[in-house]
């Protein structure tokens, strides 16, 4: 059964959204998504909520107290939890409910209110019998970025090139947390080294924010008066955080998810057939790494697409025209923002960061220690078969 994105919504992402509660934050995104979809509450059949670890806000099972606010009273409510990839996984679960014929219209919402606590603290808790080596997500991923640079022989400025591109793209996005039109390669390279080889300007911010999408079946899509984003394929794969021989640079779960995705979408040459990609890049170097993992480039060659400017708006494959995670990182929502931005591109509703002629787009997210992968491909025309 076919499914489509009927509408998307997101908050203005900021360091602190102290003007709203968690419920208010979610509703800001939900209300925009419903309006964008032209759908009212009685037409919503189920709600799927995603957010990252509960320790980030210190609320166990926030779906309990949010049930009223996110419209779950009288409807099925599911909570999805796959660390940083959760926003993408949440959209995929909602899609599955529609494609399976269980529901006609499903609301998916994901959020993070990082200002209620400190994710760096929450990700660096030292259990007994361990050495105090945790240093947040940056401390976790920096060694793997170093390994990528060594393996691919990428020049040292590639990470800074990505940062400049994404922050300039973010300046075109009214919802982005960081909007830095005047950023330069020199200013990025002059920024403080946080987790060598990762600099401050190559690192995502800590954001409060939410995102929501309304997924509908074929009848709902055809009843929509607005353009929809047809979901051509979804994929999710998982692997252990650590195992002997794990490839932290090019994780197998990501490779296999991408292969399954392209196969299901009938795409044989992703670089040729995908018009734009929203890829989960919390540290700038992950753009070339994921370009390879996703099959847009051969292993070791992803940085060449970046260096040649092909991932800028106007290039062969614009990556993160919204500014991506480097500009807004409400962790639980970050994956859904990638999925929603991909849909916005093929709906022609991306505003100033619209990629001209975008008809097929990728939304991608990853989470945990590069162990959860979720992705979808959306297009402006309905897939021939699903």
């Amino acid at each position: 059964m076919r499914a489509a994105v009927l509408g998307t919504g997101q908050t203005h992402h900021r360091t602190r959204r102290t003007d709203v509660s968690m419920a208010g934050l979610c509703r800001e995104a939900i209300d925009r998504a419903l309006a964008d979809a032209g759908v009212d509450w009685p037409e919503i059949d189920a709600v799927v909520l995603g957010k990252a670890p509960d320790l980030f806000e210190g609320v166990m099972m926030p779906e309990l107290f949010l049930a009223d606010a996110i419209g779950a009273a009288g409807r099925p409510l599911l909570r999805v939890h796959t660390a940083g990839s959760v926003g993408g996984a949440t959209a995929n679960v909602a899609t599955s409910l529609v494609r399976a014929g269980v529901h006609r219209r499903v609301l998916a919402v994901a959020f993070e209110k990082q200002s209620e606590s400190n994710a760096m603290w929450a990700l660096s808790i030292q259990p007994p019998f361990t050495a105090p080596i945790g240093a947040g997500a940056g401390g976790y991923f920096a060694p793997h970025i170093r390994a990528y640079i060594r393996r691919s022989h990428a020049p040292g400025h590639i990470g800074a090139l990505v940062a400049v591109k994404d922050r300039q793209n973010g300046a075109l996005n009214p919802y982005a947390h960081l909007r830095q039109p005047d950023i330069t390669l020199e200013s990025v390279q002059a920024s403080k080294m946080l987790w060598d080889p990762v600099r401050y300007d190559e690192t995502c911010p800590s954001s409060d924010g939410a995102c929501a999408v309304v997924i509908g079946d074929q009848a709902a899509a055809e009843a929509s008066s607005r353009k929809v984003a047809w979901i051509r394929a979804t994929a999710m794969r998982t692997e252990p955080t650590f195992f002997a021989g794990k490839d932290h640079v090019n994780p197998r779960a990501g490779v296999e998810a991408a292969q399954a995705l392209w196969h299901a979408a009938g795409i044989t040459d992703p670089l040729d057939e995908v018009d734009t990609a929203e890829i989960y890049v919390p540290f700038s170097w992950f753009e070339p790494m994921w370009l390879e993992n996703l099959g847009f480039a051969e292993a070791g060659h992803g940085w060449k697409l970046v260096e040649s400017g092909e991932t800028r708006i106007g290039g062969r494959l614009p990556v993160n025209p919204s500014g991506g995670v480097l500009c807004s990182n409400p962790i639980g929502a970050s994956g859904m923002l990638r999925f929603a931005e991909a849909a916005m591109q093929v709906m022609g509703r991306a505003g100033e960061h619209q990629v001209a002629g975008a008809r097929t787009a990728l939304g991608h997210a990853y989470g945990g220690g590069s162990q959860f992968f979720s992705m979808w491909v959306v297009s402006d025309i309905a897939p021939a078969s699903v």
Partner: protein
Amino acid sequence: MVAPPLSAPLDIAFDYTRSLGPVLGRFMTGLRAGRVLGSRTADGRVHVPPLEYDPVTHAPVTELVEVQSTGTVTSWTWTDRPLAGQPLDRPFGFALIRLDGADTALLHAVDAGARDRLYTGLRVRIRWAAERVGHIRDIACFEPIDGPAGALDFQKDEPVTIMTTPIRLSYTHTASADESRYLRALAEGRLLGQRCPVCRKVYVPPRVCPADGVPTEDEVPIRDHGTVTTFCVVNVPFAGQRLDPPYVVAQILLDGADIPIPHFVIGNADDVRMGMRVAAVWREPSSWTTTPENIAHFRPTGEPDAPYESFEEHL
């Protein structure tokens, strides 16, 4: 006899903040002034505590109305042994209390003195905290209405927008049997690995093989020398950090192991390299316990670097 797995306490705590938004902000501002506000939904019901969104129409709730600080117990239970962090430190009742003017009940503590003095239908009133700051704990508890009411001092301040909610979690963390053997060997200054019977990979610390899902079996002694596969220089300070930055956290592939362990490498951060050969620097044996911290850090050995190809598959 097999020694039991090792256990140790894990206590974590954080003073979380709650951005209250327009509805709960007014509710907390009211509590600070000794007033209780409820929200009126489209069906006319008054909810205390207030709802931010109408569960029937889904519309944002905008109308807040004041209810009384007196009410009626609609159901209850009793606790003889209060726990740390609960509203009272002597036996008390947890009760659902419908405040006069409200249509829903609020869960709170009733300082009834004895179990037989608490009953459904009991009339109670709020006992306000001595110092009110705009927090749910401005309601200290409820008390039966027969006693004298405390005085209320009204104050006017800026609206309450944020509430702090300290959360303390106390766990007992238990290591697996395999990890416990590893830790006990560490306490004797030895490093222990185990080989997976299926993939033949040597895991340090030993664990159920994540790739094959079977327990590792053969114990393999591991040398305390190894190779830095990759590393990070931590320059950023953060809450809960145990070392002063900058410091190097490296992935170290111990000789004979098939998976690296993370640990510190001491020396000039600029000199640390992928492939650098390092050796463990152990603390004084008298201080050894069941922890990897018995190894203070690793130091460069001065040997030639290991060729990239020798550790490439461990990145």
